[in-house]
C-alpha cells in the first residue's frame, strides 16, 4: 500500500485503485489464464493509472509457500502449482510427447547458443539436422525464428520461446542450468575450426546479437524479411 493520492491525482483524472485492489485484480487475471500474461497486457486490462508490476511483487510474496505460486516467464507472469505437489495431479498430467535424442540435443543447443543457425547446430552435433527435428520443436512452440544472420546467404537463426521457458519453469533464458559455467569454460563460444575462412566467421560472430545479454528479448522477433 504505497499510495500517494496527491501525486496520482496530478497525473490522472481518475485515481488508480488502491494497491490492495490492484493486487486483487492481478490475482484474478493471472488465475483466469492458463497462459502467462505480460505486464503490458495487465496494464491494458486494469484501470487507468494501475501499476501491475508492483502489484505482482506483493502478490508473489503473498503466495510464497502456498499450493500455487506466482512465477515469472520471460516478460510475463503466471500462476502455477507448486512443483512439490505434482504427485497429486496424475489426473491433470498431460501425455508428454517423447522427444528423440536428436530433438532434445537440438533444443538444448538452441537454448544455450541462441540465436543459432542450422549450420551451427550441425557443426556442434557433427551431423545434419533433419527437417523433422526442427519442425517438431517449432510445432511444440519451444523454438521460433530469430533474426537472420547478416552473413552470406542470410541464414535464419533459431531462438527459444516463452512457451519453452514456461514449460521448463525458467524465468528467462539466462536461468538455463549451468549457463554461466558453460560460458566461462568457453563452450558456448563460436570457435571457428582452424584454417576456416576466419574473416567470415569473425564477422558472423560479431553480428550475433547476444540474447542473454539483452534485456528485451522481444526485439529479436523477425522473419518477415523474406517478404
Amino acid at each position, binding site marked *: 500500500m504505497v499510495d500517494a493520492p496527491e501525486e496520482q491525482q496530478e497525473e490522472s483524472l481518475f485515481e488508480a485503485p488502491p494497491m490492495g485492489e490492484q493486487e486483487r485484480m492481478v490475482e484474478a487475471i493471472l488465475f483466469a489464464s492458463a497462459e502467462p500474461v505480460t505486464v503490458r497486457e495487465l496494464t491494458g*486490462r486494469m484501470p487507468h493509472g494501475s501499476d501491475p508490476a508492483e502489484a505482482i511483487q506483493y502478490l508473489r510474496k503473498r503466495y510464497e509457500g502456498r499450493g500455487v505460486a506466482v512465477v515469472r516467464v520471460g516478460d510475463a507472469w503466471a500462476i502455477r*502449482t507448486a512443483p512439490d505437489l505434482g504427485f497429486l495431479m496424475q489426473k*491433470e498430467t498431460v501425455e508428454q510427447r517423447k522427444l528423440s535424442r536428436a530433438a532434445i540435443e537440438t533444443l538444448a543447443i538452441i537454448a544455450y547458443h541462441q540465436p543459432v543457425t542450422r549450420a551451427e547446430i550441425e557443426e556442434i*552435433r557433427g*551431423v*545434419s539436422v533433419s527437417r523433422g527435428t526442427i519442425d517438431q520443436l517449432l510445432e511444440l512452440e519451444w523454438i521460433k525464428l530469430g533474426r537472420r544472420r547478416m552473413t552470406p546467404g542470410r541464414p535464419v537463426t533459431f531462438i527459444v520461446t516463452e512457451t519453452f521457458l514456461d514449460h521448463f519453469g525458467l524465468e528467462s533464458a539466462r536461468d538455463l*542450468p*549451468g549457463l554461466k559455467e558453460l560460458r566461462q*569454460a568457453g563452450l558456448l563460444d563460436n570457435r571457428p575450426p582452424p584454417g576456416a575462412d576466419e574473416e567470415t566467421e569473425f564477422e558472423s560472430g560479431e553480428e550475433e546479437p547476444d540474447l542473454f545479454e539483452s534485456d528485451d528479448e522481444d526485439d529479436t522477433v523477425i522473419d518477415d524479411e523474406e517478404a
Partner: protein
Amino acid sequence: MSDDPSILETSVSDRLAAEALIVDVEGFEGPLDLLLTLSRTQKVDLRKISVLELAEQYLAFVEKAKELRIELAADYLVMAAWLAFLKSRLLLPPDPAEEGPSGEELAAHLAFQLERLQAMRDASARLMARDQLGRDFFARGITEDVTRTRRVTYTANILDLMQAYSRIRTKDEFRPLSFDARESILTMEQALDRMRSLIGFAGEWTDIMSYLPDDWSGDPKRRRSATASTFAATLELAKEGKLELRQTDTFAPIQIRSREARNG
C-alpha cells in the same frame, strides 16, 4: 600404422566394446558422436584426451567395419580420411613449407568439439530433468478467456444531419429536371448516326450548326445538347478520316466538310 601393437593389444573388454560399437553403428548420431563414445574408453577428462589415440581408435573401428562388410555412411568415411590426415600431421615433423593449421591446432579443435558436444548432452539432460509444465507443475484448469466485445458507436453531427436533409430536399426540387434532362439529350450515338448519313453530302465547308436536327435547334436546352453531341460526333468522324473541321478564330463558327467527297 594400424598394426601398431599398442593399438592391437587392447583388452578383451575393449574389443568386445568395439564390436558392440560396430553392431550399434546405426545408433550413432554421426562420426562426432562415435568419437565421443570412443573417447570414453580413455577414461580421462575430455580436455586431456589423446586425439592421436582417438584417431587410431576411430580408424580401427572403420577397418573393422570394412572387414565385417558393414556399410558406413559417407560422413563416417570422410571423418576417417580427415583423422588419417590429422594423424600424419601429428606424427610427422612439421613441414615449414606447408600452409594451413598445425596438427596440434587441428587436434585441439577436435577436442573442443567433443567437449562442446558432451557439454550440450549434459545440458540437455539437465534441462529434461527439470520440473516440467503438465508433468510436475500445472497451469490453471478452469480458465476464463477474456471475452472481447466490440462496441461500435455511430457518430453524426448536426451538420451531417442538415446536409442529409438538404440533399433529400434538393433531390426533391430537381426531380422534374432529371426527367427533362433525359428528354433533352441527344446522345452522341444518335448524333454520330445522323452525321454518318449526312456527311456524304458535305462537299463544301458548312457550319456545324446547320447539321442539328430541326426539332433540336429550337429549345435552348435541347439545342445545347444537340450541339455538344454533334460536335463530338464530327470529332469522331474526323478521327476516322471522314471529314475535316476548321475554325477561323476563337469562338468563330465551326465548319466541316467531307473528305471522301473531295477525294472520291
